[in-house]
């Protein structure tokens, strides 16, 4: 293994986990694109550029995990709000459980180095 592998792997893991972070942001609340994008970008290391979130949202819609409705706004143009579907909720629950197991498992081994 070379050091470059690790950053590549992190990129791949982020790509894999990001859709579920979007679903999680929609768990209790409907949100519009700019809002979603800003919330994700505010957390370090989650997205490299805001624009790449839109292809992801489009994919989630096509997969039936998310649906959208238009709403008027008091300031500026109407917003396209994203909402979790029942299937999206199930997908999120499954991932959340698997993720907790995976995270704890990796942490059990890898986390020891840093906690010394």
């Amino acid at each position: 293994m070379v050091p470059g592998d690790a950053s590549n792997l992190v990129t791949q893991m982020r790509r894999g986990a990001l859709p579920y972070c979007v679903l999680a942001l929609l768990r209790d609340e409907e949100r519009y694109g700019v809002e979603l994008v800003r919330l994700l970008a505010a957390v370090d290391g989650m997205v490299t550029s805001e624009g790449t979130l839109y292809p992801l949202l489009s994919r989630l819609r096509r997969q039936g995990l998310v649906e959208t409705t238009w709403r008027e706004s008091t300031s500026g143009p109407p917003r396209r709000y994203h909402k979790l579907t029942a299937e999206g909720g199930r997908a999120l629950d499954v991932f959340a459980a698997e993720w907790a197991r995976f995270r704890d498992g990796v942490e059990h081994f890898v986390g020891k180095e840093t906690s010394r």
Partner: protein
Amino acid sequence: MTTTAHELIDAYLRRLDAAAAGLPPARRAELILEIREHISVALAESPDQGEPDVRTVLARLGDPEHIAREAGGADATAAPAGEQLSARRVLPGLAGALVLALLVLIGEVVGWVALLIAVVLGWTLLRWPLRQKLLIVVIWPVGLGLAASAYAGGGEPIAPVVALAVVVGTFVVVHMDRKAA
């Protein structure tokens, strides 16, 4: 908004449109529309919608080429998965050869049963699109049936040639179909 601000946005969207040329038309239009919406909403929420704000919004969106790649990337990586399964690609040929051997060596009834099994196995195991799977179900029974009747009619040298042509033909047709897709 100033003229420069408008020009900046137009130039950005043109770059995105060009970069997304490889996407299916509906997806390309959807992407442009959503980025356009993002820009207008993000600007509406900015303090003064001037040129500096436009530059900031576009910079945060990132490279149009990067966005277009992301839009095409996830589907592009899904396609080659079937290509990697070389064993699965050989399978139809092996099944065809087996059917041919049974038809010629053992007899018609066993041959037809083998053909049925081969078609069912091919249908369930192969990760091909539905259209290509239909080719198997049509080409194999018809072609191998012809080969069998040619054999039964005493045309022994013809039967293996027809059967071989069917197996090879399946590959050629599926391969061409894939290239076209």
